[in-house]
């Protein structure tokens, strides 16, 4: 064995990183080579001295723990909030998204002041300004939806009547065969939009 290889094996041996077979080879070399034997002794001694030195623990001052604990920044309330955000990025993003969606929907609800009339049989309906009238004697076959307006029903509606953000007046002569829904709050309006969207998607 070359001495150079033996030296690298010595280090591996001291690092507990030499397979048993090679340990034997190294031992054989050390028995035959005085130079390497001396070197190995020196390395081993250095190793032992380092270990013994590192196992004498120096002692830090008594008040070190106290000083460390005092130097810590005091926890703040807002800090807890920020750490919560840091720890739940997905939740934070989702809630911000929902918040923005909600805000935009609400602003739309406030801005959207135009009269909208929807239905299957709109020829029979009379519109005067912001008032939608179903005259007496007329029969509307199908649903009627009015947004942002007053609705006055004198005749017959063979379907549902939905009034959003407006008023509904039913005369004694009125006859509505379906459901009557009055929606004038942001939340129920939103709910209506959402369900409407889904049913539209479903029937398309």
């Amino acid at each position, binding site marked *: 064995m070359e001495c150079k290889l033996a030296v*690298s094996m010595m*280090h591996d041996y*001291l*690092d507990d*990183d030499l397979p048993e077979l090679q340990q034997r080879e190294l031992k054989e070399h050390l028995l035959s080579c005085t130079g390497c034997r001396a*070197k190995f002794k*020196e*390395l081993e*001694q*250095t*190793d032992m*001295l*380092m*270990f013994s*030195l*590192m196992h004498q*623990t*120096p*002692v*830090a*001052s008594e008040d*070190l*723990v106290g*000083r*460390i*604990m005092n*130097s*810590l*920044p005091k*926890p703040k309330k807002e800090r*807890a909030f920020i*750490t919560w955000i*840091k*720890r739940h990025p997905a939740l934070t993003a989702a809630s911000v998204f929902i918040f923005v969606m909600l805000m935009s929907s609400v602003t739309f609800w406030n801005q959207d002041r135009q009269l909208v009339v929807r239905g299957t049989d709109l020829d029979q309906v009379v519109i005067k300004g912001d008032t939608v009238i179903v005259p007496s004697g007329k029969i509307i076959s199908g649903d009627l939806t009015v947004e942002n307006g007053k609705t006055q029903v004198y005749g017959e509606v063979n379907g549902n009547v939905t009034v959003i953000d407006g008023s509904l007046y039913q005369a004694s002569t009125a006859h509505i065969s379906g459901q009557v829904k009055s929606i004038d709050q942001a939340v129920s309006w939103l709910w209506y939009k959402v369900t409407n969207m889904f049913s539209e998607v479903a029937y398309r």
Partner: protein
Amino acid sequence: MENLEGRLTKLALKGDQRAFAELVELYKDKIYHLAYRMLNNRHEAEDVVQETFLRVYRNLDRYDDKQKFSTWIYRIGTNLCIDRLRKRRPTYSLDAEMNDQEGIDGYSMIPSDNVTPETELLLSETQSLIYEAIDSLPVKYRSVMILRYLQDLSLQEISDVLDMPVTTIKTRVHRGREFLRKKLGPKL
């Protein structure tokens, strides 16, 4: 079962100061020992311990409990020591190896200046010889050697702490040991 450090860090994160004090109690001596051997100065070592725990406290939320806590805190402590050693030395690079001899560079030319009367009195002759030898080790070898012998860290653990490949650590341990042998050999 979750390990002790993992539980303590979680409690500390929730604002439990006593849990953090427990962590300090567990690791202060180890970090002090590391810093003392690296810097060879009591005051600086205590500063480093304080700074290490401050950093640990600030970054508790980033601690990943799949990782060993000791690895994490040793990394912080070692880096702080290395920073200090870099600042302490003159700006021209001493890390550049001179001559063609392995492990010999600018540091070995600088005489150790950290032997205070107090340490001189307390130490035996052999011990001060080793301290001198360690102190003359280049920083990159010193950190590796101290970590190797400090808590019997394995080569793999040292590579985790220093964030370097195991092969590099191995080479550095070998060179560091060779360096110390050359320094101490004739005197032993």
